[in-house]
């Protein structure tokens, strides 16, 4: 029995050119539709990434520098840009390899090999989704905190220190130098005020506390979002630093969410959550579909059908998820 016929009902037109019986593309209906879905999904992702490019070109002089945003590795302290995300990329490529090995084993009707490789693929997918959750958590929690100005710009803090004869700007955390005044207002709650008004959590520090802390540390300077000719963020003079915080500081922000972003323009955080979230959702659904197919393989569904083409079809989807990540990796972390 021809493997292509096993998943599709026979219509009696096989081999009849004008009855729709010929297959000029030599691919089954299911596989072709998976390819067409992938094309449309690729266009969706391109839309998101191109919109990201649009916003980035619009704010080309003040966009956050990815190397300064994603610097953490689980279980390690210190500054390691790129390392963890490179690991995630490798995990996803590796799970693509086990997927294509499962497809290959399916072509040779080796059921046990298919089971084993599908299992490894699922594990790889889970590691990736877990890593992405960790990456999100770290990004949301934030690093040093910053002050948002009335105009929505971000001002960060640090001091110039000499390391190996080179002057570098060492960031300092707001929580380490702000002077707690204990005079801040308490968060409004429904039970002790207007019952129909809600208020979110208040920032841990007020701008005044940060200002007082800045005054108390004569070495500390403010860094703005603006990228200078050397491709680095502009550092203000001491006088200018104090002036900016005093006159323009509005809100102390810690971490990133859809409203504020301590790393720079809030658009960066919005796009990060949206694009990596949409990709992560694809990985998650890919894992779910892989698990379903995995159990079908164990149950012998495809052995009875005489074809493992279904593994090939989910394989296409899984590789596509890897393909998209290659681009997300480039445009969020490298470029």
């Amino acid at each position: 029995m021809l493997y292509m016929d096993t998943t599709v009902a026979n219509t009696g037109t096989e081999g009849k050119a004008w009855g729709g019986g010929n297959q000029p593309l030599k691919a089954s209906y299911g596989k072709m539709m998976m390819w067409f879905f992938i094309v449309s999904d690729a266009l969706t992702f391109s839309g998101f990434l191109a919109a990201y490019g649009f916003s980035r070109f619009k704010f080309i002089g003040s966009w956050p520098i990815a190397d300064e945003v994603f610097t953490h590795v689980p279980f390690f302290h210190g500054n390691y840009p790129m390392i963890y995300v490179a690991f995630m990329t490798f995990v996803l490529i590796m799970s693509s390899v086990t997927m294509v090995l499962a497809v290959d084993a399916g072509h040779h009707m080796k059921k046990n090999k298919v089971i084993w490789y599908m299992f490894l693929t699922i594990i790889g997918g889970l590691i990736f989704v877990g890593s992405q959750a960790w990456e999100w958590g770290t990004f949301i929690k934030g690093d040093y905190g910053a002050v948002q100005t009335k105009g929505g710009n971000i001002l960060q803090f640090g001091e110039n220190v000499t390391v190996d004869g080179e002057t570098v700007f060492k960031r300092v955390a707001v929580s380490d130098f702000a002077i707690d005044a204990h005079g801040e207002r308490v968060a409004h709650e429904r039970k002790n005020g207007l019952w129909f008004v809600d208020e979110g959590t208040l920032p841990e520090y007020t701008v005044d506390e940060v200002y007082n802390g800045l005054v108390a540390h004569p070495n500390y300077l403010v860094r703005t979002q603006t990228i200078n000719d050397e491709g680095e963020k502009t550092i203000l003079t001491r006088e200018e630093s104090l002036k900016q915080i005093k006159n323009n500081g509005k809100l102390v922000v810690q971490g990133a969410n859809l409203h504020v972003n301590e790393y720079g323009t809030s658009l960066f955080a919005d796009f990060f959550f949206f694009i990596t979230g949409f990709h992560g959702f694809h990985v998650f659904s890919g894992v779910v579909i892989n698990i379903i197919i995995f159990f079908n393989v164990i149950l012998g569904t495809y052995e009875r059908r005489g074809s493992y083409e279904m593994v090939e079809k989910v394989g296409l989807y899984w590789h596509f998820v890897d393909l998209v990540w290659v681009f997300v990796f480039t445009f969020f972390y490298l470029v």
Partner: protein
Amino acid sequence: MAHEHKLEIFRGLWKFKSNTSKIWGVLFVLSVITFVEVLLGIYKPESLMGQLLGMKILNWIFIFLTIVKAYYITWDFMHMRDETKALRRMVVWTAVFLICYLIFILLQEGGYIESVYSSGFVKRDF
């Protein structure tokens, strides 16, 4: 059951004995490219920071390497190499054309708005 695979990459420069060994070969290629990308991303060589066509040379290298990776994932992992010409072109040309168009108009517009900001709200005075 016919499952012929074309077993060579780099236009025939690297031939494989079986489909499985080709998969590992492609993994090797992809890993090397990723490794190079990460190295360049960490060290950012000064010589590649010059501008070329509105972007840093380094960024063009990253984009080029990404497309190379995308090619091998599509051609070898997704078996595009083994599909008929018609299916391949239907998928690849359509996507590539539409994506290039989309990127062009959006980046063009983003750059325009940026220059309106940076040149005192008048980009072109007719």
